[in-house]
């Protein structure tokens, strides 16, 4: 059963309170972010739950969630590498970084490693062009990527995961 903790529910109320009365649908994007943080991805159950929190129809949530690229409508790995491939990153070698990750993790963009640890995605410009090539991992950016840096990031992820398990 999909349900937020009391703390998260309070956060939802706080978000809703930012908007005028009756315009609680405005909270949809932030609450979906919250749900994705909490549950990892947005299943129909999760989206239905969000709909109920905002008193809107579930289909309105699907309509919106499918529009934006950041919402995961499929389960993803523990760590998602979203590598930018737009012009400014491309000229700084993002293609090489992508192939390197593909080869290293043995997955193609859009896929997740068998151990459920890593998902690789290619994304369009993330606004870090001066620090290219780069990728987003969770909340933060990993910039000035090199093969060595990618190795280090992957190792770090595995270590953290092992330590937390």
């Amino acid at each position, binding site marked *: 059963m999909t349900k937020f903790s009391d703390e998260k529910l309070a956060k939802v109320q706080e978000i809703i309170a*930012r*908007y*005028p009365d009756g*315009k609680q*649908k*405005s*909270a*949809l*994007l*932030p609450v*979906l*972010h919250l749900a994705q943080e909490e549950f990892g991805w947005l299943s129909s159950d999760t989206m239905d739950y969000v709909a109920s929190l*905002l008193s809107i129809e579930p289909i309105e949530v699907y*309509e*919106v969630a499918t*529009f*934006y*690229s*950041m*919402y995961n409508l499929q389960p993803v790995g523990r760590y998602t590498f979203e590598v930018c*491939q*737009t*012009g*400014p990153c*491309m*000229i*700084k070698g993002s293609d090489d970084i992508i192939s390197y990750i593909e080869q290293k993790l043995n997955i193609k963009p859009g896929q997740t490693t068998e151990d459920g640890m890593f998902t690789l995605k290619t*994304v*369009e*410009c*993330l*606004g*870090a*062009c*001066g*620090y*290219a090539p780069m990728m*987003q991992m*969770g*909340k*933060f950016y990993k910039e000035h990527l090199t093969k060595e840096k990618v190795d280090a990031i992957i190792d770090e992820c595995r270590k953290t995961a092992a330590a937390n398990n």
Partner: protein
Amino acid sequence: MAVKLLLEKAHVEGIRTYDVYRREGGYRAVEKALKSMSPEAIVEEVKKSGLRGRGGAGFPTGMKWSFIAKPEGVPRHLVCNADESEPGTFKDRYLMEFIPHLLIEGLIISSFALGSNATYIYIRGEYAWIPDILEQAIAEAKANGWLGKNILGTGFDCEIYVQRGAGAYICGEETALIESLEGKRGNPRIKPPFPAVKGVWDRPTVVNNVETLAAVVPIINLTGEEYAKIGVGRSTGTKLISACGNINKPGVYEIDMTISVEEFIYSDEYCGGIANGKRLKACIPGGSSVPILPANLLFKTAKGETRYMNYESLSDGGFATGSMMGSGGFIVLDEDQCVVKHTYTLARFYRHESCGQCSPCREGTGWMEKILKNIDTGKGKMSDIDLLWDIQRKIEGNTICPLGDAAAWPVAAAIRHFRDEFEWHVLNPEESQVRNFGLAHYADAREVVA
């Protein structure tokens, strides 16, 4: 050393915190504005400053503010557009990340000027850590009486909220941003009605870029008249330029719009020259949607005059031989870069970011992407280049929002200035896969200048 109005204090230790920011003279402008100026006077000051929207369109900010409708009993809103998504542009992120209080200060003054009691910062979703920084700054400002109820005893109430987008370039377009803020798909609205009359929740709304709103602080501190003295002509004040690509020093620079493009690229104060001793091939000076310029048109205009880093000079020659200031996303390509491939990535970007509402953009961007991919991978035909030209020509100006133009211009300019490179790809399908076209007959701009 050029004038710095926004980033002067950006690297003062601890400037992110309220105490340091305040100690460095922060919130003086709020005090001045709220205590000694009327909202109308602030609008007038911004008009006088000649400040133009820093998001890309360059529309005079004061004028935009004066359009806001003030129907009795209807709340008005200021929305800060922090949905910085134009490839090559990362200046707003820099400003918000390093000197968040400057934006908050600008927002308080602007909210007061516009009568917005609830102001929203709509920030692109990928900048996931920045809302924390902003919310921290907002909390500090509030704790110190700069936000909340009855600010400075003026009776003015104001709250600032941060809302994250979720990955949609189109939400940088103001009406799409409003839709998104309302929790909907980011489909741009048809204008009229304009946001200034009917914006978010059907209320009068002004949407301004981060840098624009931050610039209100120095305008109030200096007065509009003094601010207008900085820069040249209608390019007043300072502008943040985010420089990237094959340069030695990528990053965000504040310029006063009197420096030349050449100086910007080669001066150590700014980009520090082309990286790895390579030669300059081309540059997109204002974010990926503005026309790419080959080196020979970059430093000198078609008339042979020096090209400067300002609105007028960058667009000198129109699209035939000029470009635009745009959002200040400065992308530099060296001799090893392939214009076809670069244009292809941009076409892919715009296809991916089209909202899907109107036909030219939805279908046209997808088609351009496919053609460019084919040419880039050695499968193109000569007629594909003409077809590309035809498609972009019919997208331009014929879509609901400017995304159509943004998608068409880079393709148009690439063909306009680099047609031989496209043709070379078509004529040399195999060779083009193993080596770059390079500079060919384009000389390094410096050689031309010399």
